[in-house]
């Protein structure tokens, strides 16, 4: 109790006296902004934020200039702009999430997950009909796309990192470029092959094909990064024990990279789960539940949102927002899973 606890001093810490100009500047900025909004014709939220930024720039620059020199003033100005840029990133996203919840939460109920739209018309209230068919369609199309694209994506990354074949650099380059393919082009391609070329009609399989074109590069690039993180010692140890390359990769490298590879697949799923444009061209859309992925039109959540948005009456707009909130919940589940798996890998290291 009586031990003398020496409180560490921090002589470099600015004292209140040193901070006085900053505090004064902050107050001045706030009051000047309010005064400008009150007196001049600059009104509303836009006027307020404009005045605030201008005043913050002005005050901080003046204070820095008076204390030091022109360079310090420039530094203050750029600091304000960097903070403003950061705010501009946060504002749209928070508005987006807020509006999704505000507009979509009202229609959320258990019933919408148990009914499809076959018995409800476009302008019937939200208590009728639901989006069971869309949820099932999305699950089908995403699952099939995962089955198609995961092996190809993994093989591509193994080719780049482990086999290091003659075309490794080329494959890497093209996989990078492939991740920039517009989603509508993937849809057109599948339409050209599947519908025009092979004469099939709309079904979930076609949608899955289009989505896997978009998913392969994501899986390949992420798993490539994961495989590159595996220390070379492991590969050399495996080979030195007399294992073939195949046994080394299958028994050592892939188990070591497991959680990262799972992350890469989940990130791929999160990337394609919300894709709309390719589905508009491939799955045909339906109002009834279709449990057969190989035959008949089907729906999916992005398609459901798109269709109800296009119908345009108040009830269907509400349905579109409802679809958005369900879609966002699905994307966030996948996204959090990816982060969870990504993190456990980091913690174990």
């Amino acid at each position: 109790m009586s031990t003398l606890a020496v409180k560490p001093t921090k002589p470099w810490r600015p004292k209140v006296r040193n901070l006085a100009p900053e505090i004064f500047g902050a107050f001045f900025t706030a009051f000047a902004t309010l005064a400008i909004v009150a007196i001049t014709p600059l009104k509303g939220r836009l006027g307020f934020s404009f005045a605030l930024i201008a005043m913050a720039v002005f005050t901080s620059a003046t204070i820095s200039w008076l204390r030091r020199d022109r360079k310090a003033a420039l530094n203050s100005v750029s600091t304000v702009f960097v903070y403003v840029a950061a705010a501009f990133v946060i504002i749209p996203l928070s508005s987006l999430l807020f509006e999704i919840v505000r507009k979509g939460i009202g229609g959320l109920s258990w019933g919408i997950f148990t009914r499809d739209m076959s018995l409800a018309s476009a302008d019937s209230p939200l208590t009728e009909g639901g989006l069971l068919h869309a949820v099932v369609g999305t699950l089908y199309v995403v699952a099939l796309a995962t089955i198609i694209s995961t092996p190809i994506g993994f093989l591509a990354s193994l080719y780049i990192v482990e086999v290091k074949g003659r075309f490794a650099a080329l494959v890497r380059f093209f996989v990078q470029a492939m991740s920039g393919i517009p989603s509508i082009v993937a849809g057109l391609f599948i339409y050209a092959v599947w519908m025009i070329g092979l004469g099939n009609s709309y079904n979930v399989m076609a949608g899955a094909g289009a989505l896997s074109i978009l998913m392969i590069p994501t899986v390949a690039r992420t798993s490539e990064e994961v495989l590159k993180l595996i220390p070379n010692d492991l590969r050399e140890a495996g080979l030195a024990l007399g294992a073939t390359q195949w046994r080394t990769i299958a028994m050592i490298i892939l188990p070591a990279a497991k959680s990262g590879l799972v992350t890469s697949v989940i990130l791929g799923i999160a990337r394609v789960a919300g894709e709309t444009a390719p589905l508009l061209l491939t799955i045909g859309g339906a109002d009834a539940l279709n449990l057969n992925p190989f035959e008949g039109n089907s729906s999916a959540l992005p398609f459901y949102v798109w269709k109800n948005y296009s119908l345009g009456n108040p009830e269907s707009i509400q349905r579109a927002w409802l679809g958005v909130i369900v879609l966002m919940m699905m994307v966030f589940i996948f996204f959090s899973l990816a982060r969870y798996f990504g993190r456990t890998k980091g913690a174990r290291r």
Partner: protein
Amino acid sequence: MSSTLDQPKTLPLPREITTVPRFSDRVFRGIVTTGGLSTLAILALIAFFLVFNGFEVMRSEGLRFLTGFDWMDAIPEEGIAATYGIGAMLYGTLVIGILAVIFGVPVAVGAALFLSYYAPEWIKRPMVVVIDVMAAIPSVVFGLWGYFILMPHAEYWAKLIHKYLGFIPIFDMPAPAYSRSPFIAGLVLAIMIIPIVASISREVFAQTPPDRIQAAYALGATKWTMIKAVVFPYGIGGVIGGAMLGLGRALGETVAVYTVLNLVYDIRIEILLSAGGSVASMIVNKFGEADAVELQALMAAGFVLFIVTLFVNFIANIIINRTARKG
């Protein structure tokens, strides 16, 4: 047991050391190589099928397909032949892509600087998550948000811009129609490309050699002069590459643009006016009621879009790879 010790067997022959892979390895390498090269095959197939299906239209229209403004089906009873030209749409695509880069890249680079050099530790991690989340939001959601939430605000901003800067030709307004303009589409696309540009810029900034940063500070540089003298010269290639990746994404964006842009088959210089173009949105717009010939034209348009975005992505990746390797 002891008998084995008593009667030593012949020693195994020394193992033959060879660099020829075993059979299992050869099979394995074959499978992996096939898988790796299949990505190239997919790209080649995409190009082939789009050209194959769009060839008729491309041949009959020739260069007019790229420069023409009209997109009209044939009207047999009046003897009018079909004309398909994506000139206006191509121009419109470039306009909204460039607007997105102009709006989005400064904000994204600022945010990347904030994360790398300004942000306190406690805000960094949540903000990185925020940017990742933004990248995962589906484009149809951006479209709905842009149409219902952003557009009323953006129309008001457009009116202000027109009121005070209307003497500049691009802000002129022949008619008071402010909704669904290239300006608004550019804003929505800017928000969509911010995560890409910000995360690539951040990666590049993180590779700036710390000794040079410390050297700049030791010479008495302020934070801003340090960034100007060290970070920007070092990372400018990555930022440009990131901006081009963002441009590629913006050029190919379909659904979000469709909801917030009014497609008009004409080249207009006024960006605030409710008239713009986008190749990707046009494909979705026309696809529903397309007949066989128009479908071919859409395939050709898709091919043009494919080539343009692939080209932009190529350049971007070359620049980024070069910058990243420098470190």
